[in-house]
């Protein structure tokens, strides 16, 4: 097991080095001029030059790169110009916000999609199968910002059930003391039921928005993979041996059908984490996606580099976890590794 982890991590190192170089070069190739942007509306060429010198942007590229890498080695990701904070600090506070939202959305999607997919596979061609198809198609074809705005309009503006879409907490609550950065968990640790309820209330609608989007791939993969397994010989044998249909489907078939579902889950999670910018925008969620996009728009190099690097590390970690999960679900995967 340890050997597996070590070998996986070793293969990730070259890709991380690649990411560092590519993001550095890409941000420098972007057409925007950071200094001119931050010099403000009334800047003279001289003022722009002063800012450029202050930011070290007047040095030749190789020197800038060496500066960047040596700072990186010390764990310093630089400072964001658009928010004025250190990038490392921003990422550590924003990543949990995104992760909490994405995980909630994913769990919600999972709870709905997996039983739905199994049912659709077992009762192939029935109304439930058609319903599955329609819902997943609708979920994947509605853009998230649209579902988000629609849900806000319905649940907040029209019905008044949901709280105002103002981020992670209502303005009159203060955030629980940071332990994990997940408000739900932190408020439980602090035994603060009021804050827990407030954080949960803020989370429901954006999580639902994400879940609607994530529903489709999970349900479809579950269905397809279940269909394949249900048609296989061991299931026929199990049925012939007179096992109950419940045991056959859940214990035998579903366990074997889980591998592709887990792979998809990993992909959907990492995709959602970086790509739910629109949901974050709609719900004023202080997440990492909107942070990166804003930085990109203002040619703010440091956060873009930090974001890509953080994402790369996250992908590596996630892939490792998925690989390990394979081994637990299917012993055969262990020996192949």
């Amino acid at each position, binding site marked *: 097991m340890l050997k597996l982890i070590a070998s996986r991590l070793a293969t990730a190192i070259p890709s991380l080095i690649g990411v560092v170089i590519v993001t550095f070069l890409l941000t420098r190739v972007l*057409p925007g001029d950071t200094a001119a942007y931050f*010099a403000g509306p009334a800047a003279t060429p001289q003022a722009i030059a002063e800012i450029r010198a202050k930011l070290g942007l007047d040095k030749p590229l190789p020197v800038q790169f060496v500066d960047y890498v040596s700072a990186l080695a010390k764990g310093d990701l630089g400072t964001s110009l658009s928010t004025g904070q250190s990038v490392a600090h921003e990422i550590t506070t924003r990543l949990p916000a995104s992760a909490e939202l994405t995980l909630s959305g994913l769990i919600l999607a999972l709870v709905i999609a997996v039983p739905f997919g199994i049912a659709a596979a077992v009762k192939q061609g029935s109304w439930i199968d058609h319903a599955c198809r329609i819902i997943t198609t609708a979920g994947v074809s509605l853009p998230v910002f649209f579902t988000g705005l629609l849900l806000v309009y319905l649940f907040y503006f029209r019905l008044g059930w949901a709280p105002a879409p103002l981020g992670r907490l209502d303005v009159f609550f203060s955030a629980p003391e940071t332990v994990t950065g997940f408000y739900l968990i932190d408020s439980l640790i602090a035994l603060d039921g009021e804050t827990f309820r407030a954080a949960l209330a803020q989370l429901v609608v954006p999580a639902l928005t994400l879940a609607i989007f994530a529903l489709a791939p999970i349900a479809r993969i579950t269905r397809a993979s279940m269909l394949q397994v249900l048609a296989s010989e061991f299931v026929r044998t199990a049925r012939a041996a007179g096992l109950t249909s419940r045991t056959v489907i859940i214990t035998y078939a579903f366990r074997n059908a889980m591998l592709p579902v887990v792979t998809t889950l990993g992909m959907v999670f990492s995709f959602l984490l970086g790509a739910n910018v629109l949901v974050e925008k709609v719900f004023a969620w202080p997440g990492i996606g909107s942070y990166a996009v804003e930085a990109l728009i203002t040619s703010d190099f440091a956060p873009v580099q930090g974001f890509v690097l953080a994402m790369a590390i996250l992908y590596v970690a996630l892939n490792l976890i998925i690989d390990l999960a394979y081994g637990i679900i299917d012993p055969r995967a262990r020996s192949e590794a």
Partner: protein
Amino acid sequence: MNRREFLTSASATAAAAGATVAAPAVFSPAKAQARAETLLIVSESGPNNLDIHGVGTNVPGYEASWNCYDRLITHPMKDVNGTPYYDRDKFEGELAEDMSIGDMSVTFKLKKDATFQDGTPVTAKDVKWSLDRAVSVGGFPTFQMKAGSLEKPEQFVVVDDRTVRVDFIRKDRLTIPDLAVIVPCVINSELVKKNATAQDPWGLEYTKQNTVGSGAYKVTKWTPGTEVIFERFENWKGGPLPKIKRVIWRMVPSAGNRRALLERGDADISYDLPNKDFAELKGNSKLNIISTPYSNGVQYIGMNVTKPPFDNPKVRQAVAYALPYDKIMEAVLFGLANPMFGAPADYQTQVKWPQPTKYKTDIAKAKALLADAGYPNGFETTLSFDLGFAGINEPLCVLVQESLGQIGIKTTINKIPGANWRTELNKKELPLFTNVFSGWLDYPEYFFFWCYHGSNSVFNTMSYQSAAMDQFIDGARAAAANGDKAAYDTDVKGMVDLAFADVPRVPLFQPYVNVAMQKNVTGYEYWFHRRLDYRALQKG
């Protein structure tokens, strides 16, 4: 105050009043109480720095500075169409209790009991240090100080503990007004020096995160990109104690949600709703909508006069006659702007800025002018705009493209991202573009100096050069400094007439700043910087 504290205090109040309600029920009145003393503001973007002297402080950052720091002097309000509007020509003390203007200097006497938010008294030393800082840090603050001929630390002299003198290096009408803008704010110098480093002698890193002034509010919590929380400074001496105890400023990127928050009554003020929403909300009796024209601001179509075909004044006039003015007013701005075109034929040029041109859409005349200039079949060019303000710029450019097409000028629209816009303007190579300029100091010669003068500043985006124009502008500045009203009037009229005849840029409209608030929120004031002043706002 955090939630726990006010919970306990609220329970205490409830108990004292003999109320026998269950705990959860106490929460709502407590919340309501906090709500009444708290102002919730929503806007699209927030500050990146709490100090206007910082490197690259953005415009929302100016709002934090304005409310957390005091200046020596400020402007009183006057009434313009029912809205309090800063009085350009009058000054009153903020930190200074007395101002005496001499021939080549001005002397300020500080208020006796004014203290910084940490309790230390405001002294002349702090004032000098702060003004020195503004003229020394470089970038925007230094540039803005220079606009009022405030250039060197030697100009700021400590006379005694409570007296500061500012020496003039030349006579300039803009010196005193420039001391009332956001930049020359007074900072707690001892506190900053304690937190400064060798690389950062002015302590910019410290003031980026901390407000250390004597102003009416202090920032108690700032989560960049998410929220800023301001608490009132109870010992503020700059003016009457503000009514609002606490201001929560939340960033809500989606315009639709900002409107929903306002309409549902959850947000008190929304600062930057799009024109379309404002136009629709005007009919909503539940909200207060205030639109005020930008002082000294004009959106225009600019043309690069150094290169053909726009080096020919006839071509520029043809463009001025071909623009779809009325359609822009109607379809892009929903009527929320002051037209800067279509003045009647007998309109006499006035001594003010902005004022309308006599151009109006006249395709036949435009065609004739273009033929006369040697382009009977038109030409091809690109029309550029700043994507950062796409809400206005994009539909505007599409209308302009369509209209110019009618006289044979084929344009390709070039969308430039916000980060890149200023770089492109600085290159001065864009042939045709739309842009907006607005000056903090509301004087015609100030506007013309930046936008039309041969010294070719960043804002002379057309690279316009004209000896006659320079003469008018320099003349007006000199006349203003010496108080020669007759010469000043002639020069201002001269520069406006020349700018309209030569049309290197075609004025389109004076934009409005739109603020929407709940009916129970009052006290909105219009300032030259167009940001919110919390100190006058009240609720209930």
